[in-house]
C-alpha cells in the first residue's frame, strides 16, 4: 500500500467481520455437534459446552451490533420496512437459541397469535431480539418468555425472565440515549443502546418505536418491552 493512501476503515471492518464470521460459523457448528453427542454420552459436561456456545454467540452478536451501529452512525444503513409475520420472527429467534436453552436447562416459552402481522425491518429487529434474549438467558434461572401482541396501530414484543431483574443503574439509564458503560462489570449496555437506536429507526407518521425496561415481570425477573408503531 502506498504511504499516502488512507486505509478505508469501512472496507477493513467489513472484510475482517466477514472472516471472523466464517470462523465463528465453524466454531458454532462444531459446538452444536459436540453438544449433541455430549448430551447423550456425558450430560454432566453439557453445561460447559453450553457456556462456550453462549460466549461464541455473544461474540457474534457483538460483531453484528458494532457493525450496524457503525453503519447507522456513518449513515450507511438503510432501514428496510416490510410486512412480516411476528410469529415467524419470534420462533426463528427462539430456534437460534434452542441449543443454548437446552444446554442451560432453561425453558423457553412463546406466546403469539400465529396470524399476527406487523411492519418492521426483519434483520434489525431479529438482531435486537437476539441480543436481549442472549442476556435474558444468561440471567434467568429456569424460564424466559417471549410474547407479542397488537399495540395501537403497531405491536409490542415483550421478553420476561425469572432472574434478579435489571440492576437499578440500568433502569435509571433506561431513557437516556447514550451507551452508559460499566467497565468493571464488563458490561457496556451496548445491547440496550442498540435496541433503542433500532426501535427509533421504526417510524410511522409522527410516532417512532421505543423500548421500556422494568422489573415487574410476571415471571418475577426483568421485563423488556419493544414497541413498534
Amino acid at each position, binding site marked *: 500500500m502506498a504511504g499516502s493512501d488512507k486505509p478505508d476503515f469501512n472496507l477493513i*471492518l*467489513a*472484510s475482517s*467481520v*466477514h472472516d471472523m*464470521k*466464517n470462523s*465463528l*460459523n*465453524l*466454531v*458454532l*457448528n462444531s459446538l*452444536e455437534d459436540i453438544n449433541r453427542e455430549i448430551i447423550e454420552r456425558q450430560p454432566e459436561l453439557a453445561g460447559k459446552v453450553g457456556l462456550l456456545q453462549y460466549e461464541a454467540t455473544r461474540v*457474534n452478536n457483538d*460483531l*453484528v451490533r458494532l*457493525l*450496524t451501529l457503525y*453503519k447507522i452512525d456513518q*449513515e*450507511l*444503513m*438503510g*432501514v*428496510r*420496512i*416490510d*410486512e*412480516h*409475520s411476528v410469529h*415467524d420472527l419470534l*420462533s*426463528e429467534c427462539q*430456534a*437460534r437459541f*434452542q*441449543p443454548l436453552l437446552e444446554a442451560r436447562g432453561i425453558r423457553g416459552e412463546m406466546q403469539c397469535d400465529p*396470524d399476527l*402481522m406487523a*411492519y418492521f425491518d426483519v*434483520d434489525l429487529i431479529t*438482531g435486537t431480539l437476539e441480543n436481549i434474549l442472549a442476556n435474558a438467558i444468561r440471567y434467568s434461572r429456569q424460564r424466559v418468555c417471549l410474547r407479542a401482541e397488537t399495540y395501537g396501530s403497531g405491536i409490542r414484543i415483550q421478553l420476561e425472565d425469572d432472574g434478579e431483574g435489571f440492576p437499578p443503574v440500568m433502569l435509571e439509564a433506561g431513557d437516556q440515549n447514550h451507551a452508559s458503560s460499566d467497565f468493571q462489570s464488563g458490561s457496556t449496555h451496548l445491547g440496550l443502546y442498540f435496541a433503542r437506536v433500532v426501535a427509533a429507526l421504526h417510524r*410511522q407518521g409522527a410516532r417512532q418505536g421505543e423500548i421500556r425496561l422494568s422489573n415487574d415481570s410476571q415471571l418475577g425477573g426483568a421485563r423488556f418491552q419493544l414497541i413498534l408503531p
Partner: protein
Amino acid sequence: MLFRSYKQKSFLVIDDFDNFLVSMKQMLRRMGAEQIDSARNGDEAIELCLRRHYDIVFCDYNMGDQHKNGQQVLEELRYRGLIKHTDLFIMVSAEASRDMVMGALEYQPDGYITKPITQSVLQARLDKLFSQKIATHEINRAMDQQDYARGISLVNTQIKVDPKNRSWLLNTLGTLYILNGDYAHAKKVYEDVIKQRPLDWAQMGLGKALYLEGNVREAAATFSALIEQSPHLVGAYDWLAKCQRETGQARKAQETIQEAVNISPRAILRQQELAHLSRQLNDLEVAAKAFKASTKLSDKSCYESPELYLDHARTLNDLAETSSAPKDVARYAQDAITALEPVKRKYDDARVLMRGSLAEARGRHYQKHEEASRNAAAQARRLLSETETGEEDLDLVLEMAETHFAIGATEEANTLLRDFAERFPGNATLQTRVQELLEEPVSAIQRQQARTLNREGIALYEQEKLTEALAQFEKALAITPKQPGLNLNYLQALAKQMAQVERPEALLQQARETLSRLEGLSEGHRQYARYQQIRKRYQDLGL
C-alpha cells in the same frame, strides 16, 4: 417437518469457504436432503447449473474480489434461465454485506440467511422459505410460463386466504399487472399499499407503472421522494435517471447514476449506463472510468459484449486526441491499446475485429508508432475487402474513413468513402453522411465538440446574446470550417448583429469570407433552401 420433501429436491451450495460447504452439507443431510452439490465460486456454479437443474440454491454473497458476488451469480442464473421462479435462491451473507445485497437492481433473491448458520437456524429459515414457495407454487409457475393473466387471477384468489404472504402477493400482483401492460391496475395495487404504509417496494412499483404509462414527470417525482425516504435504495436512482434522460436532462441523469454507482459500485448495468451517458455528454474522464469498471465486472458474464471493449478503447482514444500534455496522450493511448486486448482474444467476428483494428490504429497513431498504426489500418481494410458488406455497414465504413483521416491516410479514406457511396446511389441518408465526412474530414470527437459549440451558439442566439453566440460559432468553425449548417447559423447571427451596430464593416468582411466558403454547396443539399434565403438577405445588404 419437510423431511420428505427435501429428500426429493436437489440442492446447490456456493461458498468459497470449504468448511462452510462441509457443514452446510451435513446440516442439509440431517434435514433429509440427499442430492447436494457444491461450488466454490460463481463460475463453477453456473457450469453446474448448465449441466443440471437445482431446486434450492444457497449462495454466499461475498466470495472475494476476484470472483462474482452472490448478486452477480443470481443475475447470471436468472438471465440465462437457469433458475426459475418456482426454485428457491437463498442469499447467504455476513451482516456486513446487507447493504450491498440491497443494491439489487432487478433480480431479488427469495430470502436471506445470515452467518453463522446453525442447524436450528437453517431448519427454521429453510422451512419457512420452502413453505412459502409451496404456497405460491402455481403463481410462480404462471410467471415462468409468462401466463400473466393466470398469475393475476391466482394471486387475487390467494390473497383472501393467505394473510402471511400478503406483502409478497401484493408485490407480485403489481409486477404481474405491469408485465401484462395493465398499468392502471398496477398503480391501484401500489397506491392501496401506500395508503397503509409507504413501503419502498410499493413506491418503486408505482414509479415504474407511472413511467411505463408515459407519465414520466410524475414518475420522476415518485422516485425522487423515494430516494429522500430511503437513500440506500439504488434501484430508485436507476429509474430516476431513466426519467431524467427521457426529459432531456442528460446531465442530471449522469449525476443520479453517479450517486447510485457510489453506493453500489459492483452493479454491471449501472456502470455501463454511467459510461454511455458520460460519453454522450462528452464527459470522457468519467466515461473512461466507468467503462473500465464495467469491462472488469462484465468479464465472463451475460453482460459482456465486444461493443463494451470497443467503446472503452474509443473513449480512451478520444481522451488521447483531446489531451494537450504529451504525457497524458501517451498514457491514454497505451490504455486504449490495453483495453483492446480482450477483443482479439475473445472474438472472431470480422466486423468486431475490423473495429478493433481501427481503434488500435488510432491508439498507435497517438503513441506516434506510425508504422504500427498504418499496419492496423491496413488490416482493417483487408478484413473489409474480404467481407460481404451492404448499406447497413454505413457506420462501420464511416468509422473506418474517420480513422484513416485521423491517422493522416487521407487518400485511403477518400477512396473508401467514394467506393462505398458509388455502390448505393439511391440511399439518400447514406449519400448525405458520406458527403458530410468528405466535406469535413475530422474525427467523431472533434465533430461532436463542434456540434456542442454550435448548440450553445444557437441557445445564446435565441437569448439575444449575439456577441457571445458569434464567439461560440467562431470556435466551432475553427474545428469544422466547411459545415454548411454551422456557417449558415453564423451568417444569420452576423446579419442580426449588423443591424444593431453602428459600424458593420468588420462584420461585413466576416460575412463575405463565410459566404465564399458556402459557394460550392450543391442544390441537392438539405441546407440549400436556407442558404438561398440567407444569401438573398446579404445581397440586399450589398454583398
